[in-house]
């Protein structure tokens, strides 16, 4: 049964990949795009397909996988099915920094916005970790509370920045808060890749531990998990995934929350089985969402976060109605 499900998942991703490379504006029709991929066709079409669509696809895969992994890991770590990469305020910090950078930096320096976002995410991570420290070390409840506080502060900061931003910068600053893959480039993907691959490896390494942590920290400790170490590593991995995603794509909701649940419905609870599949599912969802965002009202672009919400919510509702 899971074999068939795995196959369907990979097929879905491949369909999404093909669609996002072949479908687009009138400058490159699907047939031309197909020819371009086989190194034929006019050079402008090759530029569009390989220079614009391919990096955007790669970014979508990386961001979707990152968000889904972060969501799955945090849900296990915090024993909370409603945990979301944004719960711990990491993306709030990244988004606030990115928005501020976009509004304030001179135009020549706007390439530094992702770096600012990473710095903001790192700062929020540190802040949440520091706030969550209690007499017994960090605890999940304190983490969630600290995350809520940091998120609230970040939201306030973002709204303030948006109200003070000079009007030419406003659309770009809003793009950060609404999410967009439009700024994809080969260098962006190259920068993001380590922030996805390394944490993904760390999470897979601790897959079993995460399954044990999902029933509580005492149980996990009793079954041999070095809870403090694992908690720190998983938290940092989730923070890196989240920070990377926000830095290059802005705030995109729902993917991190819904994808693990959809996958659990098919593949069960074990994080070891779940994590790789959640990554693939997240990638597919992200790529499809971006395709819809680009094409639905073409050439006007919708914020991709809106589309992922619209795609994710019906699934979620169906899921809730099915389970007891």
């Amino acid at each position, binding site marked *: 049964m899971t074999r068939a499900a795995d196959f369907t998942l990979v097929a879905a991703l491949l369909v999404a990949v093909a669609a996002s490379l072949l479908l687009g*504006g009138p*400058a490159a029709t699907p047939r031309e795009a197909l020819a371009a991929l086989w190194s034929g066709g006019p050079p*402008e079409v090759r530029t569009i397909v390989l*220079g614009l669509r391919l990096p955007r696809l790669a970014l979508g895969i990386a961001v979707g996988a990152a968000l889904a992994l972060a969501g799955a890991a945090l849900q296990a770590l915090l024993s909370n099915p409603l945990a979301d990469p944004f719960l711990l305020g990491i993306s709030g910090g990244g988004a606030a920094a990115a928005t501020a950078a976009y509004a304030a930096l001179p135009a020549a320096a706007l390439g530094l916005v992702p770096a600012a976002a990473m710095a903001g995410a790192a700062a929020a991570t540190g802040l949440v970790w520091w706030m969550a420290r209690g007499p017994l070390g960090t605890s999940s409840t304190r983490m969630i509370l600290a995350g809520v506080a940091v998120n609230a502060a970040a939201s306030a900061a973002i709204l303030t920045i948006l109200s003070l931003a000079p009007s030419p910068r406003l659309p*770009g600053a809003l793009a950060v808060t609404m999410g967009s893959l439009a700024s994809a480039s080969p260098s962006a993907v190259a920068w993001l890749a380590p922030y996805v691959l390394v944490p993904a490896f760390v999470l897979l390494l601790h897959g079993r531990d995460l399954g044990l942590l999902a029933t509580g920290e005492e149980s996990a400790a009793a079954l041999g998990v070095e809870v403090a170490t694992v908690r720190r590593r998983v938290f940092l991995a989730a923070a890196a995934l989240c920070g990377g995603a926000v830095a290059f794509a802005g705030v995109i909701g729902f993917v991190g929350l819904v994808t693990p649940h959809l996958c659990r419905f098919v593949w069960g609870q074990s994080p070891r089985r779940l994590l790789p599949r959640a990554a693939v599912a997240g990638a597919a969802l992200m790529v499809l969402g971006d395709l819809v965002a680009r094409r639905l009202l073409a*050439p*006007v*672009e919708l914020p991709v976060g809106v589309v992922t919400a619209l795609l994710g919510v019906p699934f979620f509702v169906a899921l809730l109605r099915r389970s007891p």
Partner: protein
Amino acid sequence: MFALLLTCSCTSPPAKGITDQVGETVPPGPVHRLVPLAPDVTELAFALGTGPLVVAVTPAADFPPEVARLPRVPAGDAEAILAARPDLVLATTAGNDLRVIERLRQFGIRVCTMDVTSFARLEDACRLAGDLLGVKGNGERLAKEIARRCERAADRARMMSVRRALYVVWWEPLIVASPGTFHDDLLRHAGLSNLAPSSGGRYPRVDPELLLDPRLQVVVAPDERDLREGYRTLAGSPAGQRLASGALEVIWLPADPASRPGPRLPDALEALVAAREAHP
């Protein structure tokens, strides 16, 4: 029953006065203190010769040079505007918060809101402001002058072939002017056909692939430092390939006249047509 009808008609007196460009009625009356809430309507007030009536301007207003000595009121600060005790406030849909306008009206301030989406409406705005400010003759003269300059520029443009264009407000994310804006009218008068979509509002965010559309031949943008920088960055990336190779012609317009739907808009049109003539 009759009494009821009478009271009804008494509580809502018949509208008297001049209708502005957003459909609101501006009661007539003398104007001794004028506050324009944006650079474009500031320039309009001065072009009509009513500069001496202006008692305060917004921080962004910088033309004509006389505004330098005027006190500033932020366009969003209803209190500050009220404190300036204006007899008439000139507002514009190109940048003013309509809620602030509404608040001013509730306080009994006369507000005239301009909605300039084309040269024709610009001329109407000149006449409208002239009427309200008691300088009907100046208003008519200004409108005629604008019409004359536009017609002459359009004539020159007709000598050249029509090309497809976009008016770019921001490069990254790509934001363009859609049909129905004064930027669009600028393009049309210069013999350029706007490729931007009609959906998505006046200034929609669009897919960067649009810049690689082979139908697109000309891109028009205001010559501001941020936009020059953005252009430089974009030209170095795959999305800006046609810009770098020269397949796509970029025309830079004088920034303020091109961005403000006011009496200097014909300057932008003339510059646009001149640029086209220089590179046929």
